[in-house]
């Protein structure tokens, strides 16, 4: 059997760690979660020389081993637990050549844990432009390690890095900085109390604020009784440690690193002059937002029309080639239209993830945080809330996880609570189809499509609702927490196409699979409920024949009457009629009512549900859109999807909390059921009232 070693990939945020991971593992990677928590776990396999394989774990980016968030906690927990199956045989610290000094802080900490540590200096292709020169040999001697100069953009230096990984056992494990010299008296007492433990490790366990999960319990219990220093003294010692590390690093770099500031071409400051400008900065930011929404609506309509008609003909084809019967009906009327209802939105979702990953990869997102901080603070949020609010347009789940770097608990909680108001990609299917039905296809001023503007308005409405409720929560929540804020402003980078592509493919895939499973299940259940029924359902032909005695009906008209009679008397029909009184004041019929109830599992189910219900009720295969347009109110004879009911539906979906996965994440991130339940009831109540008001006013 081939031997396999564990490699941990570490580094500060913004050092291109993930692109190094992508280079090392290619597409041979999988993304999961750490057990019990929602921190993303990325691992992959890299083949080295002589059949040796490296299992590479991409750990969350961290500035140091002093954890202040769940993500960083994962790093420490792994590095302190020798029994973990992922405990690294060798660690790679990825550093950015332009921020070497700060990046080395983490390096010295990891090396001091006694783990063989390779330094990979990334973005080496920038050295010439920035007039940086490095004496690698001397630096290797001073840090007692191997250093690989790499460029993930140009794919350079990876052979050497892999070679160093292969030879990991020859690396020195001597510490860089002797931590005990910051407080000799304290450390000697520590040594006396735990003679068999590594001092630096003990020190880390003592000083962490976070709770350790699976860490060696034995050690921890002993430490709980070793309380000899006050919290502020420990903090002072931590600061001393940090300063001591920087002193070491400064001395090392003085001998090895030179930057010729005269010759450095500084694109960064020129770009920042515009992009963080107090006027132009905002103009550009809103321009970019506008561009994104225009793209989502306009550019993706071509592939969408294609997918829609493909699924319609697929249903028809299935009916033609398979023997008639219940099973064929289930596939052609239940599953295919249901799945079509999600596949159709792949173009939009891919566009959305594309833009968001470009904004993040390029370093622009941090500028937005900087520009928006003060404005956001007025509403009880932080500049860092912009990232969740913007990425919430893709999906609230990763967005809520992205709140972890917000330092103040109150600002973070408010961000978590209001993020589900932003228009996520699951709302998009509902919006698009209803806008297409009730908003005329016109151009305003010759260029902007009226439908596109409506969509933009709905996005703004989502942001507006988020901001306004944040403001309210800020007034009413009595939580005291220290407000503190620091953010790194990384260098601008042209996004690496491969990274962006991997993100878009991964995220789109997981969106489609995740939603696909729910939709498949719901469409099967719905089909069964719509195709069978009690009592009158089974005598449909008879009853319709009696009712229409004396009328001259063509065969086709009679079939339609029977089909709709059956649907109304099916199980789902009875359920729909039961809830109809609650949704009628909002302008909906029982079919929409069923679609709304089923979309409390996930919003995107709405279109699939309607597609399934309508296709059971009709004989011809048609696109979802045409079926919805053809729905007529049996009493008034007007279309079900008219301007008033359409607007009411749009508003309902804008505000309602219809996503079980989001509720589960909020429960996890806030550690209580109180907040998600609160969200569920408050948001749904707002949705109902607003939709009711809109319909009654417009009808």
């Amino acid at each position, binding site marked *: 059997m081939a031997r396999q070693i564990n490699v941990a990939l570490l580094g500060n945020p913004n050092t291109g760690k993930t692109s190094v991971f992508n280079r090392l593992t290619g597409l041979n990677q999988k993304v999961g979660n750490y057990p019990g928590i929602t921190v993303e776990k990325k691992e992959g396999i890299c083949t080295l020389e002589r059949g040796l394989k490296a299992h590479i774990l991409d750990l969350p980016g961290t500035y140091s081993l*002093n954890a*202040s968030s769940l993500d960083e906690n994962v790093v420490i927990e792994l590095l302190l637990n020798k029994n973990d199956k992922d405990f690294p045989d060798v660690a790679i610290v990825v550093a950015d050549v332009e921020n070497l000094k700060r990046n080395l802080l983490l390096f010295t900490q990891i090396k001091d844990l006694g783990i063989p540590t390779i330094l990979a200096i990334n973005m080496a292709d920038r050295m010439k432009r920035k007039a940086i020169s490095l004496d690698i040999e001397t630096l290797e001697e001073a840090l007692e390690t191997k250093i690989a100069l790499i460029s993930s953009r140009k794919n350079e230096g990876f052979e050497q890095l892999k070679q160093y990984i292969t030879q990991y056992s020859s690396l020195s494990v001597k510490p860089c900085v002797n931590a005990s010299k910051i407080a000799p008296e304290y450390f000697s007492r520590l040594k006396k109390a735990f003679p068999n433990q590594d001092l630096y490790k003990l020190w880390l366990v003592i000083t962490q604020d976070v709770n350790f999960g699976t860490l060696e319990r034995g050690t921890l219990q002993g430490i709980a009784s070793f309380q000899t220093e006050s919290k502020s003294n420990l903090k*002072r010692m931590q600061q001393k440690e940090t*300063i001591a590390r920087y002193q070491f690093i400064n001395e090392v770099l003085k001998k090895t690193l030179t930057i010729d500031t005269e010759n450095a071409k500084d694109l960064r400051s020129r770009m920042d002059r515009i992009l*963080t*400008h*107090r006027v132009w900065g905002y103009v550009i930011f809103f321009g970019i937002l506008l561009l994104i929404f225009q793209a989502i609506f306009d550019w993706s309509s071509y592939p969408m029309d294609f997918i829609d008609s493909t699924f319609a003909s697929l249903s028809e084809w299935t009916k033609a080639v398979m023997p008639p019967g219940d099973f064929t009906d289930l596939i052609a009327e239940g599953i295919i239209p249901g799945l079509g209802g999600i596949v159709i939105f792949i173009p939009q979702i891919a566009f959305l993830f594309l833009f968001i990953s470009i904004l993040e990869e390029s370093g622009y997102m941090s500028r937005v945080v900087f520009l928006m901080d*003060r404005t956001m603070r007025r509403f009880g949020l932080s500049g860092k809330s912009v990232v969740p609010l913007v990425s919430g347009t893709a999906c609230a789940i990763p967005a809520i996880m992205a709140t972890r770097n917000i330092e103040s608990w109150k600002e973070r909680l408010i961000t978590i609570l209001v993020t589900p108001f932003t228009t996520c990609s699951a709302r998009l299917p509902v919006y698009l189809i209803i806008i297409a039905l009730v908003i005329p296809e016109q151009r305003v001023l010759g260029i902007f499509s009226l439908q596109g503007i409506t969509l933009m308005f709905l996005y703004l409405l989502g942001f507006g609702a988020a901001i306004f409720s944040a403001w309210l929560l800020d007034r009413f929540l009595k939580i005291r927490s220290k407000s503190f*804020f*620091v953010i790194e402003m990384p260098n601008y980078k042209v996004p690496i196409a491969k990274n962006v592509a991997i993100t878009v493919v991964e995220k789109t895939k997981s969106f489609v699979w995740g939603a696909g499973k729910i939709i498949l299940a719901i469409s099967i259940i719905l089909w069964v409920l719509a195709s069978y029924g009690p009592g009158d359902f089974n005598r449909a032909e008879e009853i319709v024949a009696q009712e229409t005695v004396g009328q001259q009906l063509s065969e086709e008209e009679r079939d339609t009457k029977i089909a709709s009679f059956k649907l109304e008397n099916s199980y789902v029909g009875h359920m729909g009629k039961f809830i109809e009184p609650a949704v009628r004041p909002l302008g909906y019929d029982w079919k929409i009512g069923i679609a709304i109830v089923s979309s409390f599992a996930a919003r995107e189910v709405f279109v699939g549900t309607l597609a399934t219900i309508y296709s059971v009720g009709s004989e011809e295969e048609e696109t979802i859109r045409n079926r919805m347009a053809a729905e007529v109110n049996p009493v008034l004879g007007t279309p079900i999807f008219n301007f008033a009911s359409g607007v009411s539906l749009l508003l309902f979906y804008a505000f309602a909390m219809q996503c079980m996965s989001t509720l589960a994440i909020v429960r996890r991130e806030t550690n209580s059921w109180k907040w998600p339940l609160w969200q569920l009831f408050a948001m749904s109540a707002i949705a109902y009232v607003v939709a009711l008001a809109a319909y009654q006013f417009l009808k």
Partner: protein
Amino acid sequence: MQTLASLRKGQRAIIKHFSVEDVPLKLLEMGCLPGNEVSVVQQAPFQDPIYLNINGSHLAIRKATAILIEIELL
């Protein structure tokens, strides 16, 4: 004593001192250490937050934190 909050664009200064209790460790870890040179890259409206260059490390902090950091102009 001047603080970081009063530093203007184009000026350079040396970080002198800050209170251990109030300023989080994270700021130190990101390179904001006594003795380092600091300059302002950009100020958001109302001088809050401020975008700093501390010895080549670029970060943004709020005015409330900047007030706690004592500097000496160069």
